[in-house]
């Protein structure tokens, strides 16, 4: 865990790579993009949370995940909690 670089840009790139793996359109990914716009569903978010925990040591509970609506929300959650 926590071996990955912890800058907003690096986290955004890591989150973006995961979203593409889940099937999101790479051209549609931006900080303001919502999960709905990216066609990211609840199982994808569970997997994203697992990836964040593995890579950054940040534990996101189910209630935390429910609060995230956009790519920027996820990046901010990682930066805030890993700091």
């Amino acid at each position, binding site marked *: 865990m926590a071996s990955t670089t912890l800058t907003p840009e690096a986290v955004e790139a890591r989150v973006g790579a995961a979203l593409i793996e889940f099937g999101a359109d790479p051209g549609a990914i931006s900080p303001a993009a919502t999960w709905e716009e990216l066609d990211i569903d609840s*199982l994808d978010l*569970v*997997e994203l949370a*697992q*990836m964040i925990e593995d890579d950054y040591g940040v534990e996101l509970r189910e209630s935390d995940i429910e609060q995230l609506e956009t790519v920027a929300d996820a990046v901010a959650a990682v930066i805030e909690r890993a700091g």
Partner: protein
Amino acid sequence: MVSAGADGRRPGCALVTGGSRGIGAATAATLAAEGWPVGIVCRDSAAEAGRVAEAIAGDGGEANVIVADIADPATPDRIFAELEDRWGSVAVLVNNAGITADGLAPRMTDERWSSVLSTNLSGAFRMTRRALGPMMRARWGRVVNVGSIVGRRANPGQANYAAAKAGLEAMARTVAAEVGRRGITVNTVAPGLIATRLTENGVGAGLAEAIPARRPGTPQEVAACIGFLASERASYVNGTTITVDGGLTA
């Protein structure tokens, strides 16, 4: 995405709970014969489990015994960490561990009820939950629950056991629907009367006449079905229950 090796088998290992005897032991041997390194979990029969592992090694396979109580919520992390260190992720999980604490419902104590639910159902759920993360990342996984025809057909004196076994089927269906698109299947095998230590002690005596096959099944016959569900060949079988009962419930 984790791709298959030359023999079609994915990286990682298999894990069988309650693997020291009966269906669990036969399943461990079957999966080892398919090429899986197998973690054999047992609660208090380490010597027997050790003999299962030795037999697997004698046949050219790999097996490791882990002593653990499935009812303990801390158990899954400990078991999975040990296997992940040794062989990589658990790609096949067989939830076979089960206990009985029979008694007619009017006199069944809370302790008897909850001990069976705790091991047979809650324990299986926690093991499954722990297995799913790595399986999702690998885009491949097999979970097989060992249920029972008692989960579908009355067996007086086993309200707790029947509820747990029916619960395993329901859990498998739901989890299968949740994670199916990640290449993970979750199924249940429901054995009927199987020749085990229980039947040797007279349990099920007289039932053979009611079985179209006219005999109890063998642990190997159940393990063969589990082996199929754990294989690549069963990739489109998901969220279902396969009955292995010689036609008893047909």
